[in-house]
């Protein structure tokens, strides 16, 4: 984790929002503006603002956090403290499809570690990394609440249950094919 991120805070440079440049050019800060305004001055809304930001940008790069700190008046150390405390927040980008692989008790008992091994083998990535084609990242989570269908994984808003090593890989293959088809069209 970079430590001296206050220095890189884009908000130091100017107060006019339009000119802010973030290290990730894809970040359009105007999208977050309505929420910064809505929650400005509401005590205790930091987590909500961070959730909105991650919804919009997919992740929370450090310079964005510095900007949020500036705008909300919450100290950078506290923003970082909150981001690193909760597993939902990530400071690195993820692949187009985020796989949440359940490692809860029920899934563990029913062999979720084998599913992880199969996914890792197939995608050739470790947890949190992006696959070569940019399509996938997998994260281990503890329980998706569909324990009776364990082992379970969730991709986007779709949950897949009763996984086997083969079926998990098959699902990923199908998604990749679908993505390819869409890319061609």
């Amino acid at each position: 984790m970079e430590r001296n991120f206050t220095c890189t805070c884009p908000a130091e440079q100017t107060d006019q929002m339009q000119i802010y440049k973030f290290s990730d050019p894809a970040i359009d800060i105007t999208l977050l503006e309505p929420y910064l305004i809505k929650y400005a001055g509401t005590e205790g809304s930091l987590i909500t603002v961070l959730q909105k930001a991650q919804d919009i940008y997919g992740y929370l790069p450090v310079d964005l956090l510095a900007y949020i700190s500036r705008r909300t008046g919450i100290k950078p150390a506290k923003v970082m403290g909150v981001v690193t405390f909760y597993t939902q927040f990530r400071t690195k980008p993820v692949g187009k499809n985020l796989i949440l692989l359940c490692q809860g008790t029920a899934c563990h008992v029913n062999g979720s570690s084998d599913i992880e091994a199969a996914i890792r083998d197939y995608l050739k990535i470790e947890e949190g990394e992006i696959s070569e084609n940019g399509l996938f990242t997998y994260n281990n989570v503890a329980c998706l609440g569909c324990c009776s269908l364990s082992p379970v994984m969730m991709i986007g808003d779709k949950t897949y249950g009763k996984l086997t090593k083969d079926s998990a890989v098959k699902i990923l293959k199908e998604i990749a094919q679908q993505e390819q088809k869409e890319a061609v069209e």
Partner: protein
Amino acid sequence: MKITVGKGSCGIAAGAGEIFSLLEQKAPAGCPVVVTGCIGMCYLEPIVNIETDDKNITFVKVNAEAADEILKYINGEENKASQYIIEREDLDNLNSQQRIALQNCGIIDPENIGEYIAREGYKAAEKCIKELTPEQVIDEIKISGLSGRGGAGFSTAFKWNAARSSKGDKKYVICNADEGDPGAFMDRAVIEGDPHAVIEGMLIAAYAIGADEGIVYVRAEYPLAIIRLELALKQAREKNLLGENIFGCDFCFDIRIKAGAGAFVCGEETALIASLEGERGMPRLKPPFPAEKGFWKKPSNINNVETYSNVPWIIRNGGAAFASMGTENSKGTKVFALTGKIAKGGLVEIPMGKTIYDVVYGVGGGIKDGKKFKAVQMGGPSGGCIPAELIDTMIDYKTLVAAGAMMGSGGMVVMDETTCMVDMARFFLDFTVKESCGKCIHCRIGNQRMLEILDRICDGNGREDDIELLSDLALQIKDGSLCALGQTAPNPVLTTLRYFLNEYEDHIKNKKCTAHQCKALLTYFIDNDKCTGCTLCAKKCPNKAISGEVKKAHSIDMEKCIKCGKCADACRFKAVVVD
């Protein structure tokens, strides 16, 4: 005629979404297709119900073909739908339960407030606000003997009374829907299937303690629960069941949702409050209890989802009716999430005082694939396991604690002979180490040390004195931790040591994992009599550890074998033996 499709998260994961669309597209005019929540029979999902004037038929494991047959049945054409009708036994299992918290789950449309109201919904809140004093409400809850369903089992009336007695111009009612215990999903099912029961329970609590603001803290992994709850809140506001002057009385109350951000410890009430305030979710020292100084230091009442959803029933039927069920110190019913190696996994609601046998072999239908029952984990990472020889243990707060486990939130993860108990202890410790907030030393470092010991035992490097070291550390961590996360973290280790010491000894002394789960302790070899020399295993082996000529028995080089199990998976003749 009406078609109902079970669309809880589990139903949807089993394919109910597609079935719903299919039926909606093709159902004849005048036959509405509606949604309901989870009925609890997750092993039979997707479930479709057909209601006519005189009949009610349930179809289970409905796939696209089944849906077609059901449509034919509805249209009066020749069909094969009957093969998808629910079995008598499963129906009996459902009917044998006593449903209070789950009374509407899987029956009403959670997205339609009218259906909740039609089943006496909001009658209890109306009665409280219009006819009873707050003290009378608390008295009724006291008579019921309702205790918290979130884990600790603390008296609900006592908490409400404390929050009522606390002085303050502003008070809060908070619903704990963080449901962190992996393997428990009753709170999700209740919110997805009957959100108004939770809202009504909170409304009654608010009236009883004198609060005007409510918050539901829902874990982020439950997107559907958040959507359904949002809709329910909107509909309740439209009917003025939330807002100003509820039931025309001088009482105002509204509820908002706060989505969690993924931290198990935020289920602990003081950590939950810290999280609501936008902070890291670190538990705070008690006292002061939330009832005195809670959210923004104002008196706050925190209850679990299931606790609130029992409240309307208690007010409608009287506390005595609730107290007539259960045991001396555990009243009413409890919902259990039955998962793991169980034949019929799902949710069951039964009166307290039944035995574990009743649940596992009654409603649960016994162990999957005819294997042998070994233990059941209750109370999640804070609880413990109950071994097969104690299967007649009564489900009640005190007896479970005496056996080394606890009621917890009601997760029951069933384990069979293929589950390694040392690995399970390691699994739970790994979980608590990851989830420890790091505030106190015993929890942060002590649990880490225990995990390291368990890791080495599972890796075949266990030492003679490790068992003693584990017990010693466990007791110190229990004593020295600030919150219940640390205080209870060693429980899974302590109960497995108590009931499955032989497995620890096997791992440490004999370097054997009889359940074949700890990879480092396994040996793979090829049964010469069964091997046909098809060479498939050699091709699959990532480390080229298998050699042999075509059509002749192969062999595995133990030095090279990384125990990945790919050969065993690949072999079509079951010639790869694991020991």
